[in-house]
């Protein structure tokens, strides 16, 4: 089997971060989190049921009480993990989904905060996921706090950020400090590059670990069952992935 593609390493990392969850929800246009959750479900098959809700999907929607039910289930403690992106994410894990500049008349307007100002408080394992790793996204201080990374003592909060995954690296979040610690660097990237691309200060080992590549069994599950499942909901993403795999095989085959 050919080596893992960068996106495959991300998906396997997501599946790792979801270890032990019973119920994970992903947003409507989030093929990689969905793939990670599907891989988690495939890995746990026969041991533990993993429920996956994809917002706006008819196929992966087991809710029957309208769009409020996801939030209700989070409030009941029935949602273990969720993904948040963010136009800006800062070193305190504050997330900005609203815009750049002075609110309300921002220079750049993004769609809005969606459910973040609630789910960030109520879902125990929120994974910040943004492929773009640049000083534009990972800022020192967000322009607008859609959802704060931490809360003052006494504020009801059963959830929050546990990790930040980008196209270059994986960070863990320490809410006591609060701040991010570089956990591992993806293959093909290094600490200097990450330092330059990150607009906030973070802790790190002198020589950070490399993000592990998936083993053959995992990779085979991913390229088989998971890719098939994913194609039902994200056909375009799945097709591109398949074509990249085909190219990889062609490159690899002469050797």
């Amino acid at each position, binding site marked *: 089997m050919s080596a893992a593609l960068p996106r495959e390493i991300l998906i396997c990392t997501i599946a790792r971060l979801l270890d032990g969850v019973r119920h994970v929800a992903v947003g*409507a*246009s989030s093929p990689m989190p969905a793939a990670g959750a599907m891989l988690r479900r495939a890995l746990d098959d026969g041991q533990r049921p993993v429920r996956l809700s994809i917002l*706006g999907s*008819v196929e992966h929607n087991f*809710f*029957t*009480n*309208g*769009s*409020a039910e996801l*939030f*209700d289930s989070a*409030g009941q403690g029935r949602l273990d993990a969720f993904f948040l992106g963010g136009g800006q994410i800062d070193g305190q894990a504050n997330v900005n*989904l*609203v*815009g750049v500049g002075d*609110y*309300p*008349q*921002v*220079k750049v*307007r*993004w*769609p*809005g*905060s*969606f*459910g*973040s*100002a*609630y*789910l*960030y*408080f*109520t879902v125990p394992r929120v994974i910040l996921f943004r492929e773009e790793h640049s000083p534009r996204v990972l800022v020192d201080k967000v322009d*607008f*706090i*859609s*959802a*704060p990374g931490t*809360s*003052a003592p*006494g*504020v*009801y909060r059963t959830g929050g950020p546990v990790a930040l995954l980008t196209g270059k690296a994986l960070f863990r979040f320490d809410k006591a400090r609060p701040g991010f610690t570089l956990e591992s660097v993806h293959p093909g990237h290094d600490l200097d590059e990450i330092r330059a691309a990150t607009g906030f200060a973070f802790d790190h080992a002198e020589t950070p670990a490399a993000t592990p590549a998936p083993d053959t069994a995992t990779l085979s599950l991913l390229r088989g069952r998971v890719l098939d499942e994913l194609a039902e909901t994200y056909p375009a993403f799945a097709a591109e992935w398949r074509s990249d795999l085909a190219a990889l095989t062609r490159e690899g085959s002469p050797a």
Partner: protein
Amino acid sequence: MAQDLRDMARRVTPGMSLALPVDYAGVSMAMTRPLIEHGAGGLHLVCVPTGGLQVDMLIGAGLVATVETSAVSLGEAGGAPRFNDAVRQGDIRILDATCPAIHAGLMAAQKGVPFLPIRGLIGSDVLANRPDWRVIDNPFAASDPVALIPAIRPDVAIFHAPMADREGNVWIGRRRELAAMAYAASETLVTVERIVDRSLLADEMTAAGTLPALYVSAVAQAPRGAWPYGLWGEYASDTDELMRYAAAARTAKGFAEYMAGFVGQEVPA
């Protein structure tokens, strides 16, 4: 355009608040053009809980004073161009919310209570920019701040559903946010794919997914009336058309050109 759609649009008067559903729940795109031609402006849109193409079109047509929403976007087709532009220009007032806060406000109206509490929000700029919301100490515990969302009582709710019967009962399936909108609103206008002869309340199976006529002010038939959005269980979104709109509406001129050809229902080629 069908006369009954025009008649429904006339129920909307300047300055009213309109509740509109999220793109996948059943947007009555068929009502968009009648609303624009009718021209009642200064509207307060309540997106349940987010907005998309219809909201962008009403803003582009200059009918909107305020948007109360958790987000406005065209989904896969990207940002909502007329909304984004109006925000940048300061042409509309934006009341940024978070999805469950919109649901809480509607639920308060459904329950006939002045507010509902909600967890989360504290420390966010969403809350900081909503002087119409409150934070109190939970009276059942010591030093436990909790946010309160006042009731949202829209003047009119507008959505699209698969079917209605002749008594005005509407089948909404598991899209119960449509019922929540109707419970909360003073009037509810519904377009449907088809009108059926048998009563939807006559058997328990269809009744389970039915919004009773008690909450429905008017119903009109509008086949493929959610297009270019899809309708659950009926047809898929037309992403190409959404992309076409997104590209055209980047400028006011492009928007006007696009709208000149927009009927609001898919016209067979």
